[in-house]
């Protein structure tokens, strides 16, 4: 298996509704990544597109529609998707293109244009449920995650303010991110606790916003990487795991599929003690409680311990183990697949010392990014390392 490095990344602004089409967004993110890497379309061997439900953009089989904006025309090109897991799964697919030796340079582009879906992109989520057992009850995803959040809070006796703390941290972290949709340096826990109740216990500011956007990443084989940099950032381990759609049979207080994916990635990366060996993380945070849930799933702390570490400041950007230094989905925005920008591109920018105002102090060496999707069942994990 060939070693795989990252040599460039790009990301558009994330906003609720953008004028650009999906392929235009893809072009802008791709162009930025190509320029950072110092290469052109002709240097790209293969392209991976990551984009989640067709129903957001409103184009069936949208991968084919997006490809020309993703430098895919006339090249080996494939779209991968597994809901919210796509943002880390697409770079995993790019990794195996290079690790297998079939490509020296692979481009990964992730796109989502949720604003096309009217009146609200939640509308599209009404159709992901089991049509016989769940849909007749007319649930939506916010209701579902509210039940998971309550289960997590009840099991470990977690106070709502300790969950709201994550929203505050990430929206503050997003200040200074040039792509951020919802940065807020003045937000307080009280703001979150006083925001509109959507589905108890989930309130408006517990949720990341729907968004339009794109991101891109360029992966390179060990054989060629020295042409581009003397200090590469490596994709050291990848893992993915999915549980059954029969989510009603799971306990909902611990995401075992995340732990399975993490163990796979850590084994590949030679990480034996994640808490000690990993310097920072980008756990998937479409809701504030999910950052805590996923810290535990990523084996970065014990079950029920994540809110305590957060309260103690351990997960702040200048803490012992920063979580979502990008600002995450809560602060930067949540164009589903395009959150590769926070979950993998950010690892690269941090490890390469290119994160600007978001740069973690202390010269981090190892970061882990994770995404989560489908009906509380999919986990995708990537470990990146400098040097």
């Amino acid at each position: 298996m060939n070693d795989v490095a990252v040599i460039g990344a790009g990301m558009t602004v994330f906003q609720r509704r953008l004028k650009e089409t999906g392929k235009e967004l893809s072009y802008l993110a791709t162009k930025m990544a190509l320029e950072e890497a110092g290469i052109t379309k002709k240097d790209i061997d293969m392209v991976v597109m990551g984009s989640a439900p067709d129903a957001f953009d409103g184009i069936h089989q949208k991968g084919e529609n997006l490809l020309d904006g993703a430098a895919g025309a006339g090249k080996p090109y494939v779209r991968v998707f597994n809901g919210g897991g796509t943002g880390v799964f697409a770079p995993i697919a790019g990794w195996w293109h290079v690790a297998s030796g079939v490509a020296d340079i692979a481009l990964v582009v992730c796109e989502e244009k949720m604003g096309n879906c009217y009146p609200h992109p939640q509308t599209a989520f009404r159709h992901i449920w089991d049509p016989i057992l769940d849909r007749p009850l007319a649930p939506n995803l916010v209701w579902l995650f509210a039940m998971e959040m309550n289960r997590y809070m009840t099991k470990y006796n977690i106070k709502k303010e300790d969950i709201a703390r994550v929203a505050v941290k990430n929206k503050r972290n997003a200040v200074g991110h040039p792509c951020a949709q919802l940065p807020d340096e003045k937000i307080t826990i009280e703001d979150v606790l006083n925001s509109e109740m959507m589905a108890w216990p989930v309130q408006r500011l517990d949720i990341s916003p729907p968004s339009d956007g794109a991101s891109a990443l360029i992966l390179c084989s060990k054989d060629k990487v020295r042409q581009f940099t003397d200090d590469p950032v490596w994709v050291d381990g990848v893992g993915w795991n999915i549980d059954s759609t029969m989510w009603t049979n799971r306990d909902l207080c611990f995401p075992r599929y995340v732990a399975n994916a993490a163990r796979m990635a850590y084994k590949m990366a030679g990480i034996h003690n994640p808490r000690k060996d990993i310097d920072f993380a980008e756990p998937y945070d479409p809701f504030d409680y999910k950052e805590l849930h996923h810290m535990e799933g990523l084996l970065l702390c014990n079950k029920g311990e994540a809110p305590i570490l957060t309260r103690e400041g351990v997960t702040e950007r200048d803490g012992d183990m920063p979580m979502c230094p990008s600002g995450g989905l809560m602060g930067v925005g949540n164009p589903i697949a395009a959150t590769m920008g926070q979950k993998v591109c950010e690892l690269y920018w941090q490890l390469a010392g290119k994160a600007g105002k978001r740069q973690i102090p202390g010269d981090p060496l190892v970061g882990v990014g994770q995404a989560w999707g489908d009906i509380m069942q999919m986990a995708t994990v990537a470990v990146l390392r400098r040097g």
Partner: protein
Amino acid sequence: MTFLEKQTDPTTPMHWNGDMQADYFYSNGVAGDKFFKHLMKKDTFLASMCPECGVVFIPPRLYCEDCFCGIPDENWVEVKAQGVIRTNTTAMMDAHNEPLEEPVVMALIEIDETDGAMLGRIKTDMLGMDLTGMMVKAKLRPKKEREGTMKDILYFEPY
């Protein structure tokens, strides 16, 4: 570059108004048919037990996803239409992000005598609070009105 323009109205950019309309008939499946035909006649649920690991599935399934073996007819069991709430929410907004006329209490209910749980609406005036551990039973439509869908379970209520 439009990136710094904040748009909240999707009709602001020039656009074409389209849809992806398609309608469906979803078959209940073999296990689903059996479950719902039973529910049309009885006030209990059917579950199915894996012959290898002993896990009791509700709603019943034709196979065990872990042992990956079939579940024979003799392993289908009748269980009471009742259980205990594992977790719940009180929904205030619908899928279009609009306020609901009436809040909806939805719960995950661990069905007695099984290893599974079912999604259900709860009839209660205890809104916006944790109902974990509450014992509830299904309120079913009158038998002559049952259609063989989840709609035959009107709601669950405390007992």
